[in-house]
């Protein structure tokens, strides 16, 4: 029989728990200090920065072309989208946005949307694995690899492509790329559907996703949410539609929106967006015109190797473009595209030399992760994992 003074002797103070920085669920290293009362999270301090790699500092000493490998590694789940976003920013500053060949624009759309599908599937499957659904993970990875092999065939790298160039893309599509793409699309779509069938009526899954980690629309906007996380709050904001760039106005696709802003909503939006991206891919594969894949501008594009090795003109042009970099007129711009996590912005300040004075990336998931505290306070500790997973916090992009 418990007496009152026994009760008084029970420990009643809250407990501090470290989640991360090395924690199975903290993909992309982040550390969360949880103050818990029993199972309930009283307070949380989200500490990022364990993957701060000095992106901006590195960019300030690299030429505009040398920056592509760095942007690859920002959101390393969908590097192509970063490539495209960065290229568009520099082209805006150069004032050559309208002169990019149409075929190059289509190729950018194709590789970008392939990356988007990979991004969403990876995010969803990773958080499913953390919920114990290992099968879904294996299927998603299979789908992703099927796309990666295509991209590898295109540019030689599975993950960090550095495929896009200022003024176009580095190489034309391989001969039977589009045919392969078509079959891969079918494969990916079927896998995606399987995953949905697998989990969406699963009780455990629903219990841990539905109504968990919800955030109100006002908060989401105030926190600067964009992309799937914002659309999961019922705001149909998609840069591809609202500020259409490249050739996105030529495709028929929908902007999926869910309400509630909880984990399930984010999951549904991502899965549906993958489908929409596949639709875009199908249309693009049909529409894509023939033609050059890079702008005809000798001050921006390297001359053909034959000229480099056999004529002094080509040699000098190659030499100066490599050593001095592409001379971007002094000025500054903020260019924005729709990346896997939302609005990926590049704020570039040029001082007229071949290297940027500042190259700032607007990381979508940085602002999303900032809201994590509000999402988990009051929930159970276990709900931490699916909530964090559904935000798709990518270390390279969040910490840069």
């Amino acid at each position: 029989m418990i007496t009152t003074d026994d009760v008084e002797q029970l420990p009643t103070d809250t407990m501090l728990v470290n989640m991360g920085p090395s924690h199975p669920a903290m993909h992309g290293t982040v550390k969360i200090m949880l103050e818990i009362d029993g199972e309930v999270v009283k307070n949380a301090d989200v500490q990022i920065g364990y993957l701060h790699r000095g992106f901006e500092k590195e960019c300030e000493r690299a030429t505009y072309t040398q920056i592509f490998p760095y942007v690859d590694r920002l959101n390393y789940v969908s590097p192509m989208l970063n490539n495209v976003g960065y290229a568009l920013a520099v082209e805006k500053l150069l004032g050559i946005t309208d002169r990019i060949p149409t075929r190059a624009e289509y190729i950018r759309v194709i590789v970008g949307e392939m990356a988007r599908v990979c991004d969403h599937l990876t995010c969803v499957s990773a958080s499913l694995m953390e919920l114990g659904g290992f099968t879904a993970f294996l299927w998603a990875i299979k789908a992703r690899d099927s796309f990666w092999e295509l991209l590898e065939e295109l540019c030689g790298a599975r993950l960090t492509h550095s495929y896009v160039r200022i003024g176009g893309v580095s190489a034309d599509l391989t001969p039977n790329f589009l045919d392969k793409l078509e079959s891969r699309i079918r494969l990916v779509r079927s896998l995606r559907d399987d995953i949905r069938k697998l989990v969406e009526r699963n009780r455990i899954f629903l219990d841990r996703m539905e109504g968990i980690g919800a955030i109100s629309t006002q908060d989401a906007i105030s926190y600067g949410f964009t992309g799937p996380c914002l659309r999961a709050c019922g705001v149909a904001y998609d840069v591809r539609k609202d500020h259409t760039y490249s050739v996105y106005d030529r495709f028929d696709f929908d902007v999926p929106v869910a309400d509630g802003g909880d984990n399930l909503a984010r999951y549904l939006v991502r899965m549906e967006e993958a489908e929409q991206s596949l639709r875009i891919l199908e249309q693009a594969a049909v529409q894509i015109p023939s033609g050059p894949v890079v702008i005809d501008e000798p001050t921006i594009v390297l001359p053909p190797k034959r000229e480099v090795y056999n004529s002094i003109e080509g040699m000098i042009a190659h030499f100066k473009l490599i050593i001095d970099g592409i001379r971007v007129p002094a000025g500054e711009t903020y260019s924005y595209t729709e990346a896997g996590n939302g609005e990926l912005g590049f704020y570039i300040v040029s001082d007229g030399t071949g290297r940027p004075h500042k190259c700032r990336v607007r990381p979508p998931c940085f602002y999303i992760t900032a809201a994590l505290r509000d999402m988990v306070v009051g929930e159970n500790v276990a709900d931490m994992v699916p909530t964090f997973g559904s935000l798709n916090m990518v270390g390279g992009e969040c910490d840069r």
Partner: protein
Amino acid sequence: MTAQGQPPTFVPSSLQAALNWAQKWSLFTYPFVTACCGMEYMSVAGPRYDIARFGAEFPRFSPRQADLLMIVGTITERQAPVLRRVYDQMAEPKWVIAFGVCACTGGFYQNYTVTPGADQVIPVDVYIPGCPPRPEQVLDGLMALQRRIQDHRGHNQRSIGNTAVASVPDRKHLPVVKDGTSMMLSPENRMPRNGRVL
């Protein structure tokens, strides 16, 4: 001390070889996943490149249950003490693979925040270059480690029993490791204990 690559004399070499054989086929990985390479690590664990074929199948997320530490991705100065602690918590014998060029040398991040190679913090057995390395390359590195285990050349395999000295032949300047003790840090290098950085 015994010559490079030979087992300690007082352990019957056949028994030692049997032990090594057993260990190399049941490596329990602790994936210290920090960055881009994690994507490729997923693929390595995924169905196509199935690392399970080599007995390194199951990721253990507790250092106490793992004997292979895979440093997957960039190690920043802020992350380094964490890596160190995870390493210290692993039971011996233990092996370390630096997965990707960032973990090997810092890669093309030579700046104020990135540690120039995980071996600044802990000893490394196998370096897998590449940014990120292809899965085939990772499997190759794993097999290299298995050969190393079989040959009893792991960086601290010698510390089983209080026998002498092993040196890691990969890099000339890697230090002589006396049975586990030089892994201890001098006080000024010890990580802050106030929990802020960890």
